[in-house]
């Protein structure tokens, strides 16, 4: 995005004329708001945004954005977004996807996009269920979840989104909660600014088929104690009155109470999102209740050369060295002979 022009937008400028059709109370509404706010802050001309989605409730998202949008087929948004961004590195490309869309049918494109480090922003709406098809379990549904296709409980181990992302060589992983507008907006902005594939896992509520599944950590009365918001360069503190923190014990994270056993803020781990060695990011991404608070915020953010840049640079390098400048040169080059 070379020629960023300082353009002044408000969230409203990103609302399309389409009626929003998600269920009342669905977490998707909040994500839409936060994204529209984030976009307004980026200062990128509106016509440079492309929103690409697959199929699912969440994937209807592009219709509600007054940007270029492509509501594609189930699971393939990562591949389409890769095409869009590689074709035109100048665009700000966003992929909107669900836990089924990205991790079930779309798993392959998802991990390959991440591996290539194509500079797209993936918002993964994780409601741990297939919403649009009315309630079957997904690859993130907790073991034992009773759904329409698991009437006796699922027997499958779910993916940990962050772990899979980093395992696929991911360089940016963040987590947020649908309803937390402030945090979400901030994270979407950071995702947009990060060069490379940014994956944001949004803990999203499906009121109809998996209501309150995240409440155990995100409900108002418990969230301060059961989540920790990570900020680069800041100690890992959480709790209603900021009384808890995280330290490293050997190779494991541990929750400690400030003040106890002489522990002060200075003893706590300081978050380093930029560390390229993924070791600690794995642990942070995998933290789960009840042993740990669930990590929110930008967990990992390591810059690196992006795919579309490398592709473009290689083309430029070859171009600058080649004598072939157009098709006629190519056609007449090499081994030819004349018939008279």
């Amino acid at each position: 995005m070379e020629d960023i022009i300082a353009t002044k937008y408000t969230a409203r400028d990103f609302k399309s004329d389409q009626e929003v059709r998600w269920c009342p109370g669905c977490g998707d509404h909040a994500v839409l708001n936060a994204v529209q706010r984030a976009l307004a802050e980026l200062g990128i001309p509106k016509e440079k945004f492309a929103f690409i989605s697959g199929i699912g409730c969440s994937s209807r998202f592009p219709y509600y954005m007054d940007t270029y949008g492509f509501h594609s087929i189930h699971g393939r948004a990562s591949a389409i977004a890769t095409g869009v961004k590689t074709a035109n590195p100048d665009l700000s490309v966003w992929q909107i996807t669900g836990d089924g869309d990205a991790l079930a049918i779309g798993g392959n494109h998802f991990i390959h996009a991440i591996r290539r480090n194509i500079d797209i922003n993936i918002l993964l709406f994780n409601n741990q269920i297939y919403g649009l098809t009315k309630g079957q379990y997904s690859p993130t549904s907790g073991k034992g979840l009773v759904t329409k296709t698991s009437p006796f409980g699922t027997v499958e181990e779910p993916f940990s989104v962050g772990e899979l992302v980093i395992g696929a060589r991911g360089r940016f992983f963040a987590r947020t909660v649908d309803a937390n507008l402030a945090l979400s907006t901030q994270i979407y902005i950071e995702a947009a600014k990060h060069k490379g594939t940014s994956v944001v896992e949004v803990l999203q509520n499906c009121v109809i088929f998996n209501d309150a599944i995240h409440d155990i950590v995100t409900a108002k009365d418990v969230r301060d104690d059961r989540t920790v918001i990570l900020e680069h360069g800041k100690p890992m503190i959480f709790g209603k009155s900021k009384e808890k923190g995280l330290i490293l014990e050997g190779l494991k994270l541990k929750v400690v109470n400030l003040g106890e056993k002489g522990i002060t803020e200075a003893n706590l781990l300081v978050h380093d999102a930029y560390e390229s060695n993924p070791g600690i990011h794995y642990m942070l991404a995998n933290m789960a209740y009840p042993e740990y608070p669930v990590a929110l915020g930008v967990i990992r953010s390591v810059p690196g050369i992006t795919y579309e840049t490398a592709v473009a640079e290689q083309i430029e390098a070859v171009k600058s060295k080649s004598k072939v400048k157009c098709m006629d040169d190519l056609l007449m080059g090499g081994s030819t002979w004349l018939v008279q």
Partner: protein
Amino acid sequence: MIKKSEIIEREEVVIRFSGDSGDGMQLTGTLFSDTAAQLGNDLSTFPDYPAEIRAPQGSVGGVSGFQVHMGHSEINMPGDFSDVLVAMNPAAIKANIRWVKEGGTIIYDKDNFTDKNIEKAGYEKDPIAEEKLDGLNIIDAPISSMVKEALKDMGLDPKSVIKTKNMFALGMVFWLFDRKLDFTEKYIDKKFSSKPEIANANKIVLRAGYYYAETIEALRPVFRILPAPISKGTYRNISGNAATAWGLMAAAEKAGLNIFIGSYPITPATGILEEFAAHKELGTISVQAEDEIAGICTALGASFAGKLAVTSTSGPGLALKSEAIGLAVMTELPIVIIDVQRGGPSTGLPTKTEQADLMQALYGRNGECPVVVLAASTPSDCFDYAYEAARIALEHMTPVILLTDSYLANGTEPWRIPSMKDLKEIKPRFADLKEIPFLPYKRDDEKLAREWAFPGMPGLEHRIGGLEKTAKGTVSYVPENHENMINIRAEKVERVANYIPDLPVIGDKSGDLLVVGWGGSYGYLLTAVRELNLEGYNVSLANFNYINPFPKNVREVFQSFKKILVCELNMGQFADFLRIKYQEFSYEQLNKVQGLPFTLAEIKDKCINLLEDK
């Protein structure tokens, strides 16, 4: 060196080089045909190699062949029966003996006809004895030992020595056809520029073969094939895969667009992706995707972003792309999908040729989902039809499937190089920046094509997708809208017929028998029909390159013949499609599904049968 009296002029000749996969036969054949082309012969070549990278040495399955058909007159196919067979081992005899012409010549490496190799090839005793080869001119050359002898003072390791034996054989054949060695020598110098001793060894052996042939009596007479009276111009040899890639690159340049290919390797289509990857100097973006679905989806993304989008594959890969082709139909994005057909079903015969993906190309998608389907018919016209595919995709805003096949993809022929300025205009349907609000499914009256607006164009922001939409682009479940859109999408494809040439008829425009073919069997059908004409039969040929929609004159053409014979390398898919589109005619069929092209005899026999039983 050769006395005039010993030279026989021939109209055309077929030579087949064959040996173990490691024997370098593909290179030998290429060098021979390039030399012939430089000397002005018309020609057609076909490489034929095993599915294994290196099948067991000496086995029939491991035989790799390269056939060259060259002539003084127009050559349209690599030939079925060969005048000269070069066989580097017994397995090469086993695999090819059926295809040697009566009175033909076999040159073989005597040294390699050991008991072990004879057994490996599935013979009990000496194949030369076992196959009854009466009437053939058999040259038993001790190639391996001659090579060792020729290089004994060079101090090369035995492996490097024996690797040059293909050059010995090539030298012999060059002598037999009275060809100069300089083109090959230059090639050798270039290829081994960093290893001068290897270059030297190859050149010594090449000459040794040439002189050996001169020395032995057996190889007389020598054949001379005069240059073909082909049109003036600059020529090059080109394979179908390269021509396909170049045709698309040319279309992009003409349309003022960058080109993007998203593909996944698969035999025999990989060469197209490789060709794109090799031409980054023209700004080509080539993405080797993680699978075929990602191949087409990255390309669709690129199309959405304003590039000329291409994806290339073979049958199994086309199957995987089915769903995404449906998305391209629904979003009406331009994209060219190339299917280099190979032997199926499933993995089938992956290195062999077949024309059995036609129905898949036409119908292999959910819902009412028509696309434009074209087929190329010679290695070099892959350029033209790839160009056409891109032109139609861009001007009509539709996916276009281009069918080629393994035979076209790997075969080569001399090609008169076109000049960019002589190619048809291509005018993509770019949206008008001033027409705000942009209606994504608004159409023009003639083509019914929508306009193309892509990210980066200010004010034209819009959403497309796989759900049914109104003209405005709003998702719609209104029953009548759906039916209307289904009809419009079909009609849009039908109207492409207004922008393509009529079906050409070769031969009389009416008569007893019309041979009908499509795509890659063209050369064989043409040669057969010409021979039949020379023999006095009233036969004409109509070979289709435009399959969906059909050219507008098909009915007219068909009406003028008493019989119609549809020839194709499948069980009758094109004939069936004709039954759907032109139910009123009777169609005779000639079908073959052996992973091989037709032979001339098969076509001619069938035609003669039909003609005589009228």
